[in-house]
Structure formats: structure tokens, C-alpha cells
């Protein structure tokens, strides 16, 4: 690369500035390519596969309603329990078969993924926001405020999310909005614990001292000086908690207290397919494979992210 740059800059007066710009651009791409994040993901085969799978599901989670050619929730009684078949006309054939009331499994898997993935991502982000703020307050303030916050965080371990969701479903009945609120309100504990610990250890560092000495308010110190240091560990935790929330949503729908039918959800499709294992294996296998692939790719990306960032430097 260095040789190329020299050649470019020595190639005469005419167009020299242009070739320098090209060289500079090229080296920018080279820099991006060599950046440890990109190297960590693209040049490590499992992470690369995971990235493709996750992107695929995320793409369909966002745009599935505009792409799918079948109605995910409308029964077509003439088409019940058709096995998967591959045809030339992609749109007119049930690529992954149909279920007991003739709905297209491929369409329902994509739409179910949309529910699970968006719920997982928004839930994890909501929990992250709550957890970081409370954790930093607990780490900064200590005393009775910190202890109160951390006991509420402990509470979420004592009654894990899945079981709390069952309790809430018993009172309010199942529903998407309730799940979303619950995922944010009952899953911030791990974020708070990490933020509290890190804030506590960063509190006595020189840069905090320096910020304080020039008269920065505690709020400013915490958000402008401490928060950036929490970014990497929180990102890793966020990716894992997306996977956990997707599994929890699927578990709840599987148990019949998550997303109410006929809305497609991976867990609900599995619960339905379980009864037809001997006749129509694809009913359960396809949503099951979809959720396993999605969770595997998030876990692999999270693992890789942790290795690439190496959060040890912060702990």
C-alpha cells in the first residue's frame, strides 16, 4: 500500500492532487478494513456467518410487512398442512409449507421474528437506559439511595423475568405492550450492577477529580466523563440481553401467556407445531430453527464483541 501511494504521488504534476485524494480515500478504506472491530467480525468465520444471519433477520424484522406475499394471519382452509416445496415461482408456492389452517409458514416465521426481535431489541434498550441511570446514581451516591436501588436490582434476580411475566400475565392478561413495559422495568438489574461497580471504581480517578476541580456538576461528570467508559461493557451486555429477551418472549408465547394469537410469534408457532410432530414436522422445526439461529448469531456476535473490545481494561 505504501508503495502504491508513493507511485501515485510521483506520477507527474498533472492530476497529482487528484491521485493524492484517491490514495487518501483508499487508505481510509484500508484503515476501516484494518480496524480491529471490522477485523474481529469479518475475518473470523463464525462471527461473519452470525453477522449475515443477524442482518437477514433484522432486515426482515423491519421490512417483512412490505415484502411478504401471503397474509400471515388469514386462514386458507384449502391449503392446510402442505409440506415445504421449492418452486420456480417463489411467490406462488409455500416455500416452507403451511400450518393447520393453511397459513404460509415462511411468512409467519418472518412476521413472528419481527415481533420477537423488535420486542427483544426495544426491551433491552429500555432496560439499558433505566439500568445505566440508576446504576450510576447508585455508584455515585452510595448510602441509602444506592442501597435502595441495588435492592430493587436484587429483586429482579429473586423473581426472574420469565416468572414475573407469568405473574403479570395472571393479573393483566397477555399482551404486547405489557411485555414491552415489563421487559424494561424488570430487566435493568444487570445494567445497574455493572454501571454501579464501574462508576464506583471510576469515581476516584484523576479525570473525575479534574472535572470536579473545574467546577463540573455531578450530573455533568457522570454523563460526560463516566458514561463513555461504560459504553463497551454495556454494549456487550446489551447484545446478550437481546438474545435472552427473545428467548423469554418465545417461552411466554410457547406457554400461551405471551403474544396472543392469531399474531405470529416464534414461541406460539412452536407450541402449535408440537402437537403435529408426527404428521407435519415443519410446523415446529422451522420456527425452532429460526429462533435458534437468531439467538446463536446474537450470542456469537456478543462473544466476539467482548473479545474484540476486551472489557478487562475497564474492570
Amino acid at each position, binding site marked *: 500500500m505504501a508503495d502504491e501511494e508513493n507511485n501515485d504521488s510521483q506520477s507527474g504534476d498533472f492530476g497529482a492532487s487528484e491521485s493524492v485524494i484517491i490514495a487518501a480515500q483508499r487508505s481510509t478504506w484500508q484503515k476501516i478494513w484494518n480496524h480491529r472491530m471490522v477485523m474481529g467480525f469479518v475475518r473470523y468465520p463464525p462471527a461473519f456467518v452470525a453477522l449475515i444471519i443477524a442482518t437477514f433477520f433484522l432486515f426482515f424484522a423491519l421490512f417483512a410487512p412490505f415484502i411478504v406475499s401471503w397474509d400471515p394471519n388469514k386462514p386458507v382452509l384449502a391449503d392446510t398442512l402442505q409440506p415445504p416445496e421449492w418452486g420456480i415461482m417463489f411467490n406462488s408456492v409455500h416455500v416452507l409449507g403451511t400450518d393447520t389452517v393453511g397459513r404460509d409458514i415462511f411468512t409467519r416465521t418472518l412476521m413472528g421474528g419481527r415481533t420477537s426481535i423488535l420486542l427483544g431489541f426495544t426491551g433491552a434498550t429500555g432496560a439499558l437506559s433505566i439500568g445505566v441511570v440508576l446504576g450510576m446514581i447508585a455508584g455515585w451516591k452510595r448510602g441509602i439511595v444506592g442501597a435502595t436501588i441495588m*435492592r*430493587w436490582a*436484587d*429483586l429482579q*434476580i*429473586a*423473581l*426472574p423475568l*420469565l*416468572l*414475573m411475566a*407469568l*405473574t*403479570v*400475565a*395472571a*393479573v*393483566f*392478561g397477555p399482551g404486547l405492550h405489557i411485555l414491552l413495559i415489563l421487559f424494561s422495568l424488570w430487566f435493568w438489574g444487570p445494567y445497574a450492577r455493572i454501571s454501579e461497580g464501574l462508576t464506583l471504581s471510576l469515581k476516584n480517578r484523576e479525570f473525575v477529580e479534574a472535572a470536579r476541580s473545574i467546577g463540573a456538576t455531578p450530573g455533568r461528570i457522570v454523563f460526560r466523563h463516566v458514561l463513555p467508559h461504560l459504553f463497551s461493557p454495556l454494549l456487550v451486555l446489551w447484545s446478550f440481553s437481546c*438474545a435472552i429477551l427473545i*428467548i423469554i418472549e*418465545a*417461552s411466554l408465547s*410457547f*406457554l*400461551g*401467556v405471551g403474544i396472543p394469537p392469531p399474531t405470529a410469534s416464534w*414461541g406460539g408457532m*412452536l*407450541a402449535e*407445531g*408440537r402437537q403435529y*410432530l*408426527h404428521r407435519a*414436522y415443519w410446523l*415446529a*422445526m422451522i420456527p*425452532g430453527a429460526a*429462533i*435458534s*439461529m437468531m*439467538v*446463536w448469531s446474537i*450470542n*456469537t456476535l456478543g*462473544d466476539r464483541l467482548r473479545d474484540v473490545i476486551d472489557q478487562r481494561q475497564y474492570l
Partner: protein
Amino acid sequence: MIGPVMAKRVFQSAIVLFLLVTVLFFVSRMSGDPVLMLTEGAIEPEEIDKLRKAYGFDKPLYIQFGRFLSEIAQGDFGNSVRTFEPATDMVKQRVGISVKMVVPAFLTYIFLSIPIGCLAAVKRGAIGAFAMVVSLIGQSVPSFFLGILYIYFFAVTLRWLPVFGSGSWEHYILPIATLCGYPLAKYTRLVRAQVSETLTMEFVRTARAKGLHEVNVIRRHVLRNALLPVITTMGVDVGTLIGSALIVEAIFAWPGFGTLVVEAAKTRDYPLIQTCGLLIGTLVLTGSIIADFAYGLIDPRIRRGS
């Protein structure tokens, strides 16, 4: 030194348990009038008033809460709104059934994950890589899908094992194998990570230098250090174990505690689910206290408070 630390842990857990009682009480009151919720508007207004008085729902919320607390303190967790049996009796009966599945599963994954994880850490190469790939996949397949895969292959296709019912030992294999799937994968990875990190420590080199056999180096020096975080995780994971037991029971139609919780949630039987929630909370908190205690027993540094 372990006394004051444990006293503090027990005190903190008691606070968390009290918070749990509070949350369970207020969540169950948040949806409005419990009488309306239970009867679903199917009875006369005068009847509603009568029921409200009978259950004490006409009193202010804090009085109801006080009454709720004193009843719990006396061991009265209320009656199921569907069967009118005391909730504690129902829970007791079902927990016995679940224990038969959870305890063997717990022992299985503990006694498998430690040697497999060690092996994967010591033998880097193909065996280690294979164990890691399998365990990452194992960690990604949710237990409800794993159970369905087992049923499909071992019961529907091969017809080796029964799916539902109880009686012979064969009925236990699939549920226990399903329940083991996720924790086995998780602990294998955790043990491997801990062991390979401990292997790089100075004291391991010392132990080898003084001529100890490799097995003894691993058993006496590496494992004792590597297993500490594993034990803590196990304590915290009691809740996860109960959660997966609940799903496995649903797959295999096992009439245990998990099925009771799901039934209670579906029929909106909230006295029953409050009792279950409290039991789960107590188990999880006890689990993490026991783990802390075990940690102290294994690690002399903590025992001596240095």
C-alpha cells in the same frame, strides 16, 4: 470473619423478600378490583359488594396490605380462587413432583460440565474446539425447542423413549436431558474459561515444577481456584433453573410446580401465583446465600477475611 458478612447477606435478602411481597401485592391490585377481575362481570352488583366486604377489598389499600402481611406471617397464603384449596397445600404437592426432575438434572449437569470443561481447557486442539462449538450451539437452542427435537427424534421417529406419562425410569430421560441442555452448555463454557485462565497462573507453574502429576495439579490447584466463580453463578442461576423447569414441564406435560404456575397465570388465579412467586423468591435468595457460604468454605482467603 464469615459471621458478620453472612449476617449482612441474610439481612439484605430479607429486605429483598419484603420488596417481593410488596411488589406481588401491588401488582395484583393494579389491574383494578380483584372481584370484578375474578368474576369477569358475570354477577349482580349487590353480589359484588357482598364479595368485596367478605374479602376485605372495601378497606383502604394500606389496611389490605397490612392484613396481607400478617396473614403471610401466620403462614396463610390464601386460597386458590378456582379450586378453593389452600394455595400452600397445592404448591407443596406439586413441588414434590418437580423435585424428581430438577434434582437429577442439576446433579447431571454439574457432574458432566466440570470434567468436560476441564478437558476442553487442557486439550486445546480438536477436542476443545468441538466441545466449544457444541456448547455454543447448546446455549442457543431454547429448551422448548430442544425438548421438541428430542421428542421428534427419540419418540416420534426412532420410538425409543416414551414422551408423556410417568412410572418407569424411561419417562425421566427426555425431560432431564432437556432440562440439562442449556446449563450443561453454559457451565462447560464457564469451567473451560476459568480453567484455561487459571492454568496461566504462577502457582500452577510452581506446582508442576515441584513434580506434581498433571491430574493433581488440575484437581488440587487449578480446580479449587477455577470453580469459585462457577459456584457463585450456580447460586444466582437457581431462578433460571426454575424457569427452565417450568418450560420443560409444559413440554412433557409433567404435573409439577411449573405447570401449576402456568395454570395459575392462565386462569388468573392470583393468590396461587403470589404464593408461587414468594416460594421462587425464597428459593433463589436461599440459593445465592448458600453459594456465598460455599464460596467461603472453599476459599480460605474469604474465610479468614483477608
